[in-house]
């Protein structure tokens, strides 16, 4: 049986989680989408799930998106792409995303068009 690829979304906002999940599912990726509500949980889930793509929000209670990203990158050295998805675009944040090892950085818009573009550009 062919394994579906796995997406993991880490965001503390329920609304954003649902919307991102919908956007990814309707964009037609052949993937199962999992969600985590904070950075710590996200990092743990990376270990178990071994997802292909992880989408991380920047501002979350507990560890923030950049820390989450570097933790994930240091745990899982094989097959993980991290996209940092944020409500505010900012060159300094983009630099932080890069420094934390992120593969993508994009802005949250109402239809998550930027996120979908970013995911597509990675495959």
């Amino acid at each position, binding site marked *: 049986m062919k394994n579906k690829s796995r997406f993991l979304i880490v965001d503390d906002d329920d609304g954003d989680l649902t919307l991102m999940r919908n956007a990814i599912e309707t964009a037609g990726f052949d993937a199962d989408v999992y969600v985590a509500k904070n950075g710590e949980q996200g990092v743990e889930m990376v270990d178990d799930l071994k997802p292909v793509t992880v989408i991380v929000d920047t501002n979350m209670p507990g560890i923030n998106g950049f820390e989450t990203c570097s933790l994930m990158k240091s745990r899982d050295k*094989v*097959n*993980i*792409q991290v996209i940092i998805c944020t409500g505010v*675009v*900012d*060159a300094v944040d*983009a*630099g932080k*995303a*890069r*420094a934390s090892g992120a*593969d*993508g*950085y*994009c*802005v949250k*818009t*109402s239809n998550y*068009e*930027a996120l979908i573009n970013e995911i597509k550009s990675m495959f």
Partner: protein
Amino acid sequence: MKIKQPRILVIEDNKCDRDLLLHILNSLETECVVECVNSGRIGVEHLRKESFDLVILDLSMQKFDGFQVLKDIRDAKDKAFPVLLVSSFTNKEDKVQGLELGATDCINKPYIIEEVRARVQIQLKLRQILKDVQWASEKTNAGIKMLYKELDKKNKQLQEFDRLKDEFLGNVSHELRTPLTIIRESISQIVDGLIGDVPEKQKQYLSRALANIDRLKNIIDNLLDISKIEKGRVELYKEKVDLVALIKDICADFQTKAAAQNLELRYELPEDEVYVLIDMEKTIQVFTNLIGNALKFTKKGNITISLKEWEDFVQCEVADTGMGIAAEHLPQLFNKFKQFSRTHSPGEKGTGLGLTIAKSIVELHGGNIHVESREGKGTTFIFTLPKYCQRRLVHEENIDYRR
């Protein structure tokens, strides 16, 4: 996932030097992909096709002029990569020339291994930093572009909502007007005793009802006016009018009200007639709105209406000594539904449409309106109207005012 290792291109025709360099590069802190070529031509070709993060170029090759190779690789697609020159540099000027031609750094032969390692490592770090900065700026730009797009979309949506709202208001106002007219007529007939005798007390109450119906009608009329103006459905019926006489008439209508408020309503007008080409009803509306406001927002002092003649237009002013308007509110003053001051009499709340209508009417006449105001000192509205002249009339007859 492919981990992006830095790619290094070595252009060196001496096998010993090449092997030593390869050995050093393979022992770097950063894992790299190294490609070696032994000719300048092949090196240049490689660079045209692929991108590298560092080029190490031997300046003193047997068959190739190292400087020419340096020039050629600087024409490559991605010019940002650093170039390290290696040579014995017996001729000291070669270093300077190399750097001037765009080399990043130089390393002397014979190699000191630690030095080579350090210099290469520095170049790779700088290159990585540059790439990261580029990445961040590209992502930021893309994000900003996205946000603009989103803003634009939201803006269009808002405009559409605004249009729907205006349409709705226009329709509702229209529907309200007919029943209101009937109510007014009926009550008016009762008050006038046409239906039968009415006790004084009842008459009093009914009169109050009538006054409020008139206010309501006024508001609805304003809404309808705005709606028509916005749809571009306003026609001006222009005629030759003596503005001096018109202003005197308008003032006469307001004298009682001004006197009741202990305000002096006066005018400063030219002695002779001043003929303007205007839609009289609509122009009266402009004066009525401005004088009405002046009375509403002035507690003591006076209201002065003046008229000045210019070559082909006239300038009217409605000045008061009232509460004035705060500077921060001035930019929005003529916008729909904007109201900034509390009036002293609660019965005169208004709709915030008077100035919007006045502005539109003035502009439909080809004039303009502006305001000068100081808080606590008073307010002056200044607007222009076209003068009547034979030439203009001939010209204007061909114009369709319906826009």
